[in-house]
């Protein structure tokens, strides 16, 4: 009952966001939102950018890569130099090179994989000016790429797909900053901390307990961490920490913040291509996958923990509580973690490593399908559109016609680009997992024995290859192997998809739309939705099934077995 009300309220809020934020996003990227025009003008003047001058896909891509390169450098440098920088009340020393590299790549690629514990590694300045900054920037970049691809689909024989600098400035100024600013206040009102003062030292007269309690500018980071589908926690415990996620209300707000932009972007897409039904078709596919995974994971978690049962607690009416917070309980925890892994967020309010085998499988599968349901800000839309191109191609093969999508002929070049964008991730994930499993340095990582240990390694590369950032956190990832291999996975998972996407945008923009004919395969129909869902499940399922069989599936099937 409680779960049903929660889902109903969530659906209503997302429907409102879809309607209004979807239109607003279209207006922002169309240059029709002006309420911060003076600030926007100032920023564009500093950049030396003419807001009306558009870029072809290559210039757009070069701009994106240049900005990302500089961003990685800034993020790396601030971490290394934090010992000499202000706002460091704990006098933390500079971060070591391999870890600083991994973390810089992690935050610039919207991954937020964390091989460190924030409270004992990062100064307030690093958290604010290096990490939280990239939470804004990487989200704005993701949205920009999605909008560029949609422009390519909507264009009639054009060279250009927009201006990267203008898109990033507008997305940050008109969308990310205002929503985050409001959400942060709600987080604080509920109990999230927001202070520049150092850790608090307390002594309790009642029980003689002495504690040093870390604090910091947490709420401001929390808001953009969720809204930008970033996921990097201020503290090691991430969304389970009471200072990050103090109440069930902030837990629910986090879920809402994660989902609003990816969901709204499907309307923006429909509006920009001139057919709302096209956006609805995409949203429907996202919803089916999301709902299926949530039901699967929540039911699995509600059935309790095998080890706890083995130890003697047979009645677990409250479900599997290992690694979960009392105030959230099983369902709200599963909702948060599923939302986080169906998008590129990767924050957790409960320890994924201690989920049931099938609960963990639910989280893994969201990432393995490429994070398209609804996926990260921007990245969810552009990734599912790559799959849509593949789906119309397969549909075309079945009926023997040249496929079209939104009036654009899908030819060899487009199919090649979409295929590259789709295959980069699984190849990266599986090859790096195989390398880690084959080396002793890799095998030293897992905390748990048996198939669960393999799952920890598989999860790490799946998460980084999809720019998710959540972890089966028993893995000791702060080693040269995992820092460097993980950095490579995050770079390939981000730019290995963005570059073919932008090339596809450029290629599609140059085409003249052909009018819809008698034999046109309609891509706003339920049958297309079924086809697209099938392509997603078959590509993800066939690619990853063998690996899953060695991990969570083996673990589930070994009923009653306990590993040392």
């Amino acid at each position, binding site marked *: 009952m409680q779960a049903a009300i929660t889902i109903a309220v969530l659906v209503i809020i997302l429907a409102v966001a879809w309607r209004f934020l979807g239109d607003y996003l279209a207006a922002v990227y169309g240059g029709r939102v002006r309420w911060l025009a003076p600030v926007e003008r100032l920023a564009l003047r500093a950049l*030396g*950018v003419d807001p009306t001058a558009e870029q072809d896909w290559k210039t757009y891509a*070069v*701009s994106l890569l*240049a900005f*990302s390169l*500089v*961003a990685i450098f*800034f993020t790396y440098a601030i971490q290394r130099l934090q010992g000499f920088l202000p706002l460091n009340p704990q006098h933390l020393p500079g971060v070591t090179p391999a870890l600083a590299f991994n973390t810089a790549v992690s935050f610039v690629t919207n991954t937020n994989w964390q091989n460190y*514990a924030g409270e004992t590694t990062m100064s307030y300045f690093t958290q*604010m000016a290096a990490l*939280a*900054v990239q939470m*804004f920037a990487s989200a704005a970049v993701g949205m920009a790429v999605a909008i560029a691809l949609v422009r390519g689909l909507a264009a009639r024989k054009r060279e250009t797909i927009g201006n990267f*600098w203008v898109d*990033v400035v507008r997305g940050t100024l008109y969308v990310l*900053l205002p929503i985050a*600013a409001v959400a*942060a206040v709600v987080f*604080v009102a509920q109990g999230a*901390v*927001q202070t520049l003062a150092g850790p*608090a030292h*307390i002594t*309790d007269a009642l*029980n003689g*307990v002495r*504690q040093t*309690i870390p604090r910091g*500018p947490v*709420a*401001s980071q929390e808001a953009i961490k969720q809204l930008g589908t970033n996921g990097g926690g201020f*503290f*090691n*415990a991430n969304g*389970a920490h*009471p*200072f990050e996620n*103090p109440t069930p*209300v902030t837990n*629910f707000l986090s879920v809402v913040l994660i989902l609003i932009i990816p969901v709204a972007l499907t309307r923006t897409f429909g509006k920009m291509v001139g057919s709302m039904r096209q956006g609805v078709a995409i949203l429907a596919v996202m919803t089916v996958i999301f709902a299926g995974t949530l039901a699967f994971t929540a039911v699995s978690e509600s059935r309790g*923990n095998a*080890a*706890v049962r083995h*130890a003697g607690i047979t009645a677990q009416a409250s479900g599997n*509580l*290992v*690694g979960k*917070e009392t*105030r959230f309980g*099983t369902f*709200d925890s599963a909702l948060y973690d599923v939302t986080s892994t169906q998008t590129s967020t990767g924050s957790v309010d*409960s320890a994924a*490593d*201690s989920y049931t*085998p099938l609960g963990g499988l639910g989280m893994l599968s969201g990432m393995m399908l490429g994070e398209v349901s609804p996926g990260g800000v921007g990245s969810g839309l552009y990734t599912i559109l790559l799959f849509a191109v593949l789906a119309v191609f397969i549909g075309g093969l079945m009926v023997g016609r040249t496929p079209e999508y939104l009036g654009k002929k899908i030819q060899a070049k487009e199919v090649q680009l979409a295929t590259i964008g789709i295959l980069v991730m699984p190849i990266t994930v599986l090859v790096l997992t195989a390398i880690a499993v084959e080396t002793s340095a890799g095998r030293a990582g897992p905390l748990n024995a048996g198939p*669960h240990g393999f*799952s920890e390694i598989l999860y790490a590369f799946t998460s980084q290859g999809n720019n998710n950032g959540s972890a089966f956190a*028993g893995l000791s990832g702060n080693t040269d192997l995992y820092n460097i291999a993980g950095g490579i996975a995050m770079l390939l998972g981000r730019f290995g998809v963005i570059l073919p996407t932008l090339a596809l945008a450029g290629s599609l923009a140059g085409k003249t739309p052909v009018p819809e004919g008698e034999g046109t395969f309609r891509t706003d129909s339920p049958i297309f939705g079924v086809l697209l869902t099938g392509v997603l499940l078959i590509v993800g399922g066939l690619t990853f099934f063998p690996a899953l069989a060695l991990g969570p599936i083996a*673990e589930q099937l070994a009923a009653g077995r306990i590993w040392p």
Partner: protein
Amino acid sequence: MVLRQLRRGVVLALLFLVVCGLAYPLAETALAQGLFGYQANGSIGAGGSVLIGQTFTGPGFFHTRPDSNQPMATGGSNLGPRSAALVAQVKSQIAYWHSQGVSPTNDLVTTSGSGVDPDISPAAAYAQVPMVAKARGLSVRSLENLVASQVHGRQLGFLGSPYVNVLELNRALARLSAPGLASGAA
């Protein structure tokens, strides 16, 4: 072309640093301190933060979950659902509670996600009532009423799980047992 875009990249990175990295969090800090000073500084009273779990020992107090309650090292145990180490931990917790005459609930024998979970389920609090009543010489009835008065229901009626904050519960317990100490302890 590349050099011009790199220069723009540097300018934009600096703009982000100033606006999103400094102006935004500092403005939020000023706002938070002005509007919600107690929460913004960690919900800390005389004896600690109600949001950060503390370890209570002995039969005279209600206990939290068996978390380490070390705020500088937060996180879960990360033990998997078929881990022998998890079985052993839970078994030793069950044995401890049985030695105290308590029939433990699921949450009382498992660790949380944060490692500083400040709350337990109402059932876990009721389960500890006989132990505390015996140690303090209080009636079971009065302690059950005390627990009932400390239960936080679902937020907005549908979010999360009902819970009892252990620090608040023990503060109330101290007031009940020794009224003279109440002001000093709370």
